[in-house]
């Protein structure tokens, strides 16, 4: 059977595949891509890896930096990154968890200085296997979840 392309292919840019549904919109937010030009978002494709489906993001004319693609690991460690140049895959990039994360993760502790006193959000990687980060301020370690990424 010919594979039906439901999402347009792009000429130049970055394709992020295998994002578990429905996290594509959160990926856009953590990368700050809301006002970054043309983007195609596909949500809820069939996937063997993700029983609830997978999302695909195609960002045109923008090659994401390593720092940016590492951030994706926080929420979608199985995602794949392809950098496209002139219609061809020029790089298949592995993603790894960043050792330090600023501004992106919201501390779930309501009594944390980041939530009460306006301290800048800042986490350090505690455990790579469990995707656990420790808040620099209240020092609580938390397994990253979508709630920590979703709220401003």
């Amino acid at each position, binding site marked *: 059977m010919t594979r039906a392309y439901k999402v347009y292919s792009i000429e130049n840019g970055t394709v992020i595949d295998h994002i578990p549904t429905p996290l594509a919109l959160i990926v856009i937010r953590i990368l700050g891509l809301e006002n970054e030009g043309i983007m195609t978002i596909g949500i809820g494709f069939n996937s063997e890896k993700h029983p609830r489906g997978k999302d695909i993001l195609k960002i045109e004319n923008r090659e994401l930096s390593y720092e940016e693609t590492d951030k994706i690991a926080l929420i979608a460690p199985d995602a794949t990154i392809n950098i496209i140049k002139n219609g061809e895959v020029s790089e298949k990039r592995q993603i790894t968890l960043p050792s330090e994360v600023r501004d992106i993760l919201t501390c779930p502790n309501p009594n944390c*200085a980041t939530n009460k006193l*306006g301290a800048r959000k800042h986490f350090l990687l505690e455990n790579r296997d469990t995707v656990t980060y420790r808040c620099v301020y209240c020092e*609580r370690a938390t397994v990253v979840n979508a709630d920590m990424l979703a709220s401003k």
Partner: protein
Amino acid sequence: MISFRGRSIVSIRDMSQDDLTKVVETADLVKRGELSGFLNGKTVATLFFEPSTRTRLSFESAVFKSGGSVFGIANPKASSQSKGESFADSIRTVSGYCDVMVIRHPVEGAARMASELSGTPVVNAGDGANQHPTQTFLDLFTIKESLGRLDNLKIGMMGDLKYGRTVHSLTDALAMFNNELIFISPPSLKMPEHILKELDDANIRYRTISDLEEAGKCDLDILYVTRIQKERFGDPQEYEKVAGVYRITQDTINMLGKDIRVMHPLPRVDEIAEEVDSMPNAIYFTQAHNGIPTRQALLGLVTGGLN
């Protein structure tokens, strides 16, 4: 070891074994009277954004005994914070008035935030349920003073191990010195799993037990007792039952071993019977008094008055 001069003291997590040893050894010299006047000409601000009379008085006494001057706020209602000034602005302003700032705040991470904003070192005197490093320093100093060493000891911690900030920090510190730890608590107030996991990862020997009699077979050097708070229990009867089981009397001391030392961060309610106070095993008042030389030593080190 990173030099203490100009350094903020926010969390035991920032400290190395050498750092802890340095504070304890300096506190020992201060207590023996071998170091004095090292805060001459230094000004210390004590900013207590929540009241804690005991800790504040201990810091202020430490400053006076070392020749320094102290000013501050004891009650946030009497400060500009009540006029709506932000915490950040208060810290930026006061950091220009003093050589070191001692901060107590109900919000976790407040001291870390202050240390990033302040041009002068910050000493954390308690940030919510998070850290209270000078309590841990004085606990270590008391153990060293009483037993002559900080390593290869069997140390029991008893009471509320789930919510107790003091026992969490002390566990982190004692784990750096190769000690065996015995955690004694009702199952509902057990040491949190994440702390036990850290001990596992670091290959620290420990046991968790709920029976105080069982601790009698452990040959403990120290029993560190903490208060079980009534408000942790929905049912007052359940509290009474638990509080009765984890109560230290002369009989319990005899059961635990005649050389055992009993510590407590104070204030105590009734988890240690008053009859224990006169026993040579009771070192909790000495422990409280050791807060003075310990805080003197720390303030001396961060201001550069001591090396």
